[in-house]
């Protein structure tokens, strides 16, 4: 059974520290809801785990079954069984979706799949995510709607069948029907034993995929690691209770702009 252990992980972007000592363990077969206010490091954590070049790890280690993945390239991490469903999947002009999917499947198989095998796989996966087959023959995410991009992420999840999947706001941009389709796929993969670490701002997705645990990220650290009921509580009460019950000051999202701007707001600010 695969286990991912994150120990005292610190990371920064352009010199600004975001992750400030993350400790978290996630085993295959678990579905962990990753919650937290905007700007506290949730997406950063998932990107760091996958090795995004923008983020620099300054401290700590991440072990997958004892192997330190931080020393590995992004493609090696993928081949080891990690997957990141992106919040904003890139549009890559000219790269045909099916060429890309086939290349990705080949990297995960011992020998290259035949054209017939590949189309069979693709046909059944596109049906499962109810994605029109012609989307597979178009440019990678090129001109896809927000919902189509997310379905394409889930399609890749199905085709690559990782050990542990990180999903970053996979529900944003999805209508109710599409959300149900995505949730059904996740539930099926949960039953097969895939591990999940899932960011969402909405309880609706969590209601459907039934996390086994919920963790809350505050100020670049995991502040709460508890049962799934925490996701419901945050949906109803927000994050205020963390401050009152746990005594953690929740830093406000930093804004580059001055709070005093032109117009009436500025007038009010200056009167104060």
């Amino acid at each position: 059974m695969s286990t991912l252990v994150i120990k005292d992980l610190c990371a920064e972007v352009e010199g600004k520290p975001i992750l400030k000592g993350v400790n978290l363990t996630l085993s295959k077969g678990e579905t962990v809801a990753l919650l937290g206010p905007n700007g506290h490091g949730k997406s950063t954590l998932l990107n760091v785990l996958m090795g995004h070049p923008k983020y620099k790890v300054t401290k700590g280690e991440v072990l997958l079954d004892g192997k330190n993945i931080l020393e590995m390239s992004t493609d090696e991490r993928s081949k080891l069984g990690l997957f990141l469903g992106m919040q904003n999947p890139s549009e890559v002009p000219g790269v045909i979706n099916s060429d890309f999917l086939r290349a990705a499947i080949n990297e995960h198989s011992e020998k290259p799949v035949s054209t017939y095998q590949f189309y069979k796989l693709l046909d059944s996966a596109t049906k499962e995510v109810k994605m029109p087959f012609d989307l597979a023959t178009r440019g990678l995410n090129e001109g896809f709607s927000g919902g189509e991009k997310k379905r394409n992420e889930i399609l890749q999840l199905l085709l690559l069948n990782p050990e542990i999947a990180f999903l970053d706001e996979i529900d944003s941009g999805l209508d109710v029907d599409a959300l149900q389709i995505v949730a059904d796929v996740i539930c099926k993969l949960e039953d097969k034993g895939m591990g999940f670490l899932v960011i969402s701002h909405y309880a609706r997705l969590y209601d459907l995929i039934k996390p086994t645990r919920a963790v809350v990220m505050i100020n670049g650290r995991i502040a709460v690691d508890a049962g799934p009921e925490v996701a419901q509580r945050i949906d109803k009460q927000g994050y205020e209770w963390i401050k009152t019950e746990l005594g953690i000051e929740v830093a406000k999202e930093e804004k580059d702009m001055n709070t005093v701007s032109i117009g009436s707001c500025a007038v009010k600010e200056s009167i104060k």
Partner: protein
Amino acid sequence: MKELLLDNISDNFVFDKNENFFINNFDGEKDIKITLNEDVESSLSMLSLSGFKGNINIKINKNSRLEIYYADFAKNLSKTNVSVSLEEGAKVIFHLASLTEDNSNKSFTVSVDHDAINTYSLIDNYGVVKGNGKLVFDGTSYIKNGSAKSKTRQSAKIMVFDEKSIGIAKPVLKIDENDIEASHGAVVGKISDEHLFYLMSRGLSEEKAKTLITYGYLKPIMNGFDENVQKTIEQLIEGRM
């Protein structure tokens, strides 16, 4: 598609009927002159493997249209000067894809003179530069006085692979007439980190990801070639990456 040999092209090659031509091994030093007679629609596809150096002068007569596909996979040097002159109602569409490798030096100048009313030109240049390579795209679309209702676009895009790679794009417009449409665009940049990360996060190695992205970038040129030549171009891109 009718295959031509570069050596057999006379000093003034005349296109007098609707026909599509293909020149394999568009290589060596030579000056070429091509004339399209009136009311002719043709295409000319060229595949360069070792390098071409010379001037290509093209005259397109009244109401004729020429579409050019120039695939440059030459190892070393290419220095191509294309000048097109357009008579009334004439159109030219020029597609170029160049893969410029380490230590090679290439320049492509594509200029169009709009000599009469209602003329059209589209210059669409794509390039990839690797290692120490240098690639220059330039050219001037000149809409002359008296060439009203003409349209032109000059577009040049270069993807640089390495710190030392040099890409220069200088699409120029020269306009002496009102009531026309003209635009130009130039992009020089490296492969997006986000694109690379996305492909690599699915298990593709950096090399493989770059090949796929480059292939996608140069692929539009394929439209001008028969299937067997497309295969050759595909292999060239994969082999050179």
